[in-house]
């Protein structure tokens, strides 16, 4: 799942004829003056300024300012651009026209196994979460398009009447086209409103999740995807993502503040069972990580350095199932090199390492890990005869 920020998301909407408010994205308040000339709407409209970052709860954090004139916009932009949230600086703000409106609606397209569902409601904003059962749906099979009558029926079922039925159906068709043509996974407008200036349905907000795997057939995707868990990526996460995008196989890292058990397991499946084991046994995760698909040892080394350097950790779980083709000896060589580097920086005092693994070259890999004991590492090494997650029980003393 790959999430887009509001600016590029609305740009994509416009490409498929879905109307959005006038807006600009800036990274410095001093850019505003030079942009007024080409954005005449800024002179005579009320505007809203929002932090243009992957942050949840922007309103509560004071990162959304509404009902502003141009002077207010400059002040708000300047103020927001000095803010930091959880140590991450706000780099961009989006300035959009405020469109007065009476009613708010909700529309979304959600991918399903057989195709997609179009979701529609004649209410919007926070009412949607509260009345989720009343949101109406219609199904479109993969490879097909919704018919106009199908969409009109949906609009009527959702409570629209009069000329709005036709308008909604037409709008929904364009919105679906955007979802379908841009390899959408979930796209949503909340609120959707009628712009009194031109009587057109307009998207005041945009949630856009695209399929990152489809990037190869979208040369015009000139945006980067943003984190979709309510904060921007950290430096370490970005670094590992950068490596991940370059190598065969994969290396992944998500940091979790305050945890004491660090994960360095192999495999997308096993890594989640290790996370489950830590949480079930009352431990706290300092991160989620995994490497798989026989990545080069330098990539595993880079991941190891980030994981072993996490502050406040007490245990590192170097777990893994019995690999099919990931070379245990080679990937462990990366982990060992990483541990050595971090320890040289004096960062691994009091940290205990727990290893369990099987797969190609398992004997040599495990033996190399065992030898770390002679270098003064606090490490316990187990082979395939110890069940997968038992090392978590041992680490947490359960």
């Amino acid at each position: 799942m790959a999430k887009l920020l509001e600016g590029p998301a609305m740009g994509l909407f416009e490409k498929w004829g879905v109307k959005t408010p006038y807006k600009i994205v800036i990274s410095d308040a001093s850019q505003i003056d030079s942009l007024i000339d080409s954005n005449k709407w800024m002179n005579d409209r009320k505007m809203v300024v929002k932090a243009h970052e992957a942050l949840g709860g922007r309103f509560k954090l004071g990162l959304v300012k509404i009902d502003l004139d141009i002077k207010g916009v400059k002040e708000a932009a300047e103020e927001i651009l000095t803010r930091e949230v959880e140590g991450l600086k706000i780099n961009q703000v989006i300035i959009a026209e405020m469109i007065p409106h009476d009613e708010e609606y909700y529309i979304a397209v959600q991918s399903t196994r057989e195709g997609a569902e179009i979701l529609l409601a004649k209410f919007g904003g926070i009412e949607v979460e509260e009345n989720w059962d009343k949101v109406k749906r219609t199904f479109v099979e993969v490879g097909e398009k919704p018919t106009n009558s199908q969409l009109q029926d949906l609009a009527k079922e959702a409570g629209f009447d009069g000329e709005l039925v036709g308008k909604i159906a037409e709008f929904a068709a364009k919105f679906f086209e955007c979802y379908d043509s841009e390899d959408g996974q979930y796209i949503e407008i909340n609120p959707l409103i009628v712009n009194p200036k031109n009587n057109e349905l307009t998207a005041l907000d945009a949630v856009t999740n695209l399929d990152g795997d489809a990037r190869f057939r979208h040369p015009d995707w000139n945006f980067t995807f943003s984190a979709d868990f309510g904060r921007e990526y950290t430096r370490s996460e970005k670094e590992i993502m950068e490596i991940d995008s370059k190598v065969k196989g994969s290396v992944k890292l998500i940091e979790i503040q305050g945890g004491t058990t660090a994960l360095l397991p192999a495999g997308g499946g096993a890594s989640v069972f290790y996370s489950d084991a830590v949480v079930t046994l009352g431990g706290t995760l300092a991160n989620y990580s995994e490497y798989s698909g026989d990545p080069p040892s330098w990539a595993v080394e880079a991941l190891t350095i980030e994981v072993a350097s996490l502050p406040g950790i007490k245990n590192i779980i170097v777990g893994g199932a019995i690999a099919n083709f990931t070379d245990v000896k080679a990937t462990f060589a990366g982990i060992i090199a990483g541990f050595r580097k971090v320890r040289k920086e004096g960062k691994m005092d009091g940290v205990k390492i727990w290893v369990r693994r099987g797969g190609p070259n398992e004997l040599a890999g495990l033996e190399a890990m065992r030898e770390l004991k002679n270098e003064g590492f606090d490490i316990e090494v187990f082979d395939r005869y110890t069940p997968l997650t038992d090392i978590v029980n041992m680490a947490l003393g359960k």
Partner: protein
Amino acid sequence: MAIFVDENTSVVIIGGPAGISAAKRMAEFSHLNNKPFYVRAFVFPPDAGKSADVSVGNQIVSIPIYKSLKEATDETDANTALVFVAPSRATKAAMEAFDNPQIKALSMITEGVPEKDAKLLIKKSKETGKIMNGPSAIGVMSAGQCRMGVIGGEYNNLKLSKLYRAGSFGVLTKSGGLSNEIMWIISQFADGITTAVGIGGDAYPCSDFVTYLEMFENDPETKAVVIVGEMGGNLEEAAAEWYGAKKRRIKLIGVIAGFCQEALPAGMKFGHAGAKEGKHGEGSARGKSEALKKAGAIVPETFGALGPAIKSVYEDLITSGEITEKKEIPVDELPNLPKKVEHFVEQGDMLVEPLIKSTIADDRGEEPAYCGYPASELINNGYDIPHVVGLLWTKKLIGPKEAEVVKRIIMLSADHGPCVSGAFATIMAACAGIGLSQAVAAGMIMIGPRFGGAVTDAGKYFDYGCKNFNDDIPGYLAWMKKNVGPVPGIGHRVKSVKNPDKRVQELIRHVREAKLDTPRLDFALKVEATTTAKKDNLILNVDGCMAAILTDLGFPNESLNGFFILARTIGLIGHWADQKRNGGRLIRIFNYLVNYAVPSKKKVPPLEK
């Protein structure tokens, strides 16, 4: 019995190198089971017409490579396709396989296939009634019968997990790594597997749990199925629904990953592409576990409890008489993979007569070692190119004074302009469009008795003279005249006493200042004093000067020409690059530069029969 793939499966692999490595793993499986190899063809247009060699035991089997799937199925009896091509082409390849009447089932190993494509493949699978495993699958393993892909891992694991004979348990996992783990657990806690399917970790695997569950239900040999699910999607819920819908013959054991999600910040995504809870909590690990439990499946609380749960199902099956204990084959009765010669040599069980002997360099460690010294350590300790020359040519680590002389000799001899034989030959070759190594070799060929190749001989005869005629220069010259001819290292075409060779002067000045002991150089200069008295240009030339000094420094006689060759290589490479840069045109000399001393035109006589 088995599901999906069995002893009647014959495979066409669509894809290049990754497909060939998978075929090698599959061949290991054939060897373990002592059965014929079942990969029939590859489809890989760049290598179409060639064949790929795969060793099955100690036999090499050549598998043909075709341009298209159609060709492959026309020419072979392949009935199952294994797809390895890149995500941008995988869907098209799979669609062709669905449409090919000879292909009955598919497995797609390709990762990163767009979800929309995966959904189109699901639709196609329904339309054609063919099963497709994947995308992002690790493959399918039917114990003792067929291995599709690398599932099962390395050879020893196949043995340890008893994959050479069928057990009583089916396996369905989204994760590839865990499919191996579960097969291993089942072999330890029960009697092994019938078939294991890694269905793939994407959001929309083509054939779902229910499809395979129905196949297992219809396979009498499978008594129980282990499902390893994950949060995200609703395939586990569908499996639970299927299981609970009516009385099923098979026992179902399920374990779901993703409970950690409850303790994590909302939206934080772990694991496989498909492992994501819905916006409204759909597809949570807890929801899936509850659904399976409700449907009557055995659901251990943790992954750790899975082994004992499997064991208890197995013991019930034995008690009820549904299965009897399998007779185990002792591991040492199973075939081993044939070992390579290297293995026996390493173990010390085989003596191989070496082909060559080397006493100067060793490449068997992490980096080359020159006469025992690791290259990086030489660099890090400040050693330089002359020291490497010393080590590789004379096996000696030379001192700083010697190194300085060698460096100066190389610098002074690196080039002598474009007109000399060597450089001119290289330039001619470069202008004729010849590549670097051959053009430099053309220049090298010129090095010989008349050009640059007199160093070795000069060294040899100065050394001889120094030892035998040190105080008798006329005697030396007479001996040379009688036995050798002109003294090598003496004489120059253009340089003379009045027009001295600056390079020679520099070298001599340096060795004097460095206070090096140079008996041969001293001797050569005495010879020069005599010869220049006779003729102005019979001076000590640069070859002779180098030769005398290098011999004084202890370099063996046979290495001396090497200094000129080494140094001049720098210049020759430079001339080649220079011509390339300037776009030098083909050289053809003018007629007036040739003296055509040929007979006048004659009539050709008729050829005698």
